[in-house]
């Protein structure tokens, strides 16, 4: 361990010695195996020096023998601090209790954070996790990580992966939901190929079975495209596992509204902020006067900033009131912007239901203003996709 750290732990004191026989004192100390440090002569009769805590007694005795006056200027080091601390017993006890409390309170889980669930409701998942022993107030050491993960995965089949991480007093649970694998019909089972959805058949590839419809026809959902029942004059009727691909044009629609009023004003980029202190639901302004805003047209938004962390609810909140200046724009421009917005939303809505393997061929949008002052847009996406589905013959 470095000498400096050892000296700090052991402690050292700064002394002022006053008297005539200072050199004699230093020589006596040196021969008595006392280490003196940082000796500085201030005056002819005065010297300051540092001495280790363990040598303090010897130095005092020696200085007394030499007729020197000793004044302790400063005491440094861990042992001195502990000595001082022990003099104030109540304080030391308080610190000890505080440390114990911190240790005790930090050995519990205080908040549980769950992320990653999409189809499984959060409430149901929270209850499930609570049943497995991870809940606010549970002892951290009582949670068996591996057991918890395995039990969670076995309880909820939708999850393909789960992880529990306890960070401080927070338990973070992350889950990943898997997609259900499509039902696979055994090759030995006779089946038909049917249309999975309505569409306009463009190409039908038959790998096995009897073709039941022609390309260029409109097909309905559930209609048999390739039959697994094959009849021939030679072998009679046989049931086979029909296979094929049915590439069709399918149609997906999406609708969305946009309020024209939202586009009558445009943000200028200027804004003003004011703060309020909310105590038990009552707002106390943290600004002078009425807090008037100089903007002619503006929008107000409020944001509450709670000092409580980890989901703790405190009765005090800091509220930020934001005033954003707005500029009025002409109605035609607002109409164009509302149409753009509603089209974007409608395309996004339609795009969500288009299967990943589908190829969008054409997009059409139709917008109109409704009686309640909204721009309504309906979009239709024409998609090329394989709609073939295997269905067992009963």
């Amino acid at each position, binding site marked *: 361990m470095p000498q400096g750290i050892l000296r700090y732990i052991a402690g050292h004191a700064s002394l002022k010695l006053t008297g005539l026989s*200072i*050199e004699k004192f*230093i*020589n006596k*100390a*040196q*021969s008595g*195996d006392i*280490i*003196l*440090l*940082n*000796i*500085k*002569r201030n005056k*002819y009769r005065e*010297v300051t*020096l540092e001495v280790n805590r363990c040598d303090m007694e010897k130095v005092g005795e020696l200085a007394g023998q030499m007729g020197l006056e000793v004044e302790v200027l400063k005491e440094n080091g861990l042992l001195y601090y502990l000595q001082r601390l022990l003099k104030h017993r109540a304080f030391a006890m308080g610190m000890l209790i505080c440390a114990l409390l911190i240790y005790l309170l930090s050995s519990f889980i205080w908040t549980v954070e769950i992320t990653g669930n999409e189809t499984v409701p959060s409430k149901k998942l929270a209850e499930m996790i609570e049943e497995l022993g991870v809940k606010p107030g549970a002892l951290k050491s009582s949670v068996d990580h591996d057991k918890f993960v395995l039990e969670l995965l076995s309880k909820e089949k939708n999850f393909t992966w789960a992880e529990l991480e306890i960070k401080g007093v927070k338990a973070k649970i992350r889950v990943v939901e898997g997609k259900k694998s499509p039902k696979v019909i055994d090759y030995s089972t006779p089946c038909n190929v049917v249309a999975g959805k309505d569409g306009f058949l463009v190409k039908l590839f038959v790998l096995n079975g009897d073709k039941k419809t022609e390309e260029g026809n409109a097909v309905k959902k559930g209609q048999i495209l390739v039959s697994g029942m094959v009849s021939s004059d030679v072998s009679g009727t046989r049931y086979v596992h029909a296979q094929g691909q049915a590439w069709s044009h399918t149609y997906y629609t999406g609708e969305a509204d946009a309020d024209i009023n939202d586009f009558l004003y445009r943000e200028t980029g200027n804004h003003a902020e004011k703060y309020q202190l909310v105590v038990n639901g009552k707002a106390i302004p943290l600004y002078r006067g009425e807090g008037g805003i100089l903007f002619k047209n503006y929008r107000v938004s409020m944001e509450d900033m709670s000092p409580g962390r980890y989901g703790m609810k405190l009765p005090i909140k800091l509220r930020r009131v934001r005033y954003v200046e707005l500029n009025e724009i002409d109605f035609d421009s607002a109409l164009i912007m509302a149409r753009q917005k509603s089209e974007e939303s409608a395309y996004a809505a339609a795009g969500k239901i288009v299967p990943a393997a589908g190829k969008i061929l054409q997009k059409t949008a139709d917008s109109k203003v409704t009686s309640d002052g909204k721009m309504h847009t309906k979009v239709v996406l024409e998609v090329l996709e394989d709609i073939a589905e295997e269905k067992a013959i009963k």
Partner: protein
Amino acid sequence: MDKGDFFKSIIEEITDFPKDVVMNLPHIVLIGNLEIDLENFNSLLEYTSEKVRVGTSMGIVMFTGSNLEIKMISQNEIVVMGRIDSIELGLSGR
């Protein structure tokens, strides 16, 4: 050189031991003009902020300078810091 020292120098030459150990001489290390480390001394004779006089087996060694401080003094080592201007070796008795 007296008879004892003569034998000591022979031993030093034969065994290759350090001279200061065999002949009980002070070992002085000077770092620039900032620090002096003196090992194997007998006593501190005088100390002021301009002058430090130390008694050794070969006589009095004196350092002069300004703002001199004794950084550390133990049974056989003294470290002096400050602005050192000169070192004087009073070779009495050798």
